[in-house]
């Protein structure tokens, strides 16, 4: 399944399918991006990051893609599991080194059994 980011806050996918969560960031000068996962009642957890000098970065079951031309970030989750159900936020650092991250609205991922 694929979301269109901020305009579709909920993404439902079947267990075992791949998920794609999109994010449009705001500042062309942002040089660092993070994806966070937030489960109900908990604080956000780091998933993966990417610097602006990269287009793609892979982790365990997750891949982040960065398209600086259109200021777009995506998170791909392979073989989605029930434990992946959460809200996912992208965050950008608009001024290198300030760490004053700007967070997106978030996308809720629901994994269907």
């Amino acid at each position: 399944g694929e979301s269109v980011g901020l305009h579709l806050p909920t993404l439902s996918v079947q267990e075992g399918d791949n998920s794609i969560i999109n994010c449009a960031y705001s500042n062309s000068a942002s040089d660092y991006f993070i994806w966070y996962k937030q489960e109900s009642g908990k604080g956000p957890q780091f998933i993966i990051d990417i610097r602006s000098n990269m287009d793609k970065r892979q982790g365990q079951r997750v891949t982040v893609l960065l398209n600086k031309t259109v200021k777009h970030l995506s998170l791909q989750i392979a073989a989605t599991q029930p434990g992946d159900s959460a809200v996912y936020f992208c965050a950008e650092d608009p001024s290198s080194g300030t760490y004053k991250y700007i967070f997106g609205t978030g996308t809720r991922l629901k994994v269907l059994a």
Partner: protein
Amino acid sequence: EADIYQTPRYLVIGTGKKITLECSQTMGHDKMYWYQQDPGMELHLIHYSYGVNSTEKGDLSSESTVSRIRTEHFPLTLESARPSHTSQYLCASSEQGVRRELFFGEGSRLTVL
């Protein structure tokens, strides 16, 4: 597992009361932050600190105040709580260096009646 702790996790108080939300981290991080998050919404930076005796207001105006007397401790205070202060408050920290991600606490959910 990040070593950053927030207390209380939940607080229900009446209008006009003074409250302090506690945040402590044991990682020796210089940078600490307070974010405000309404249910299902994005995180907004309200305060940050780059070290002891350094505090700055974030992008979202807040009537709360903070202090940073010790590296590990970054409390947030509301002198006179109002219903408009009802929200979740998330504390975070980060290190000065190559790793730029924020480590979040579990949050303090405040309800002002």
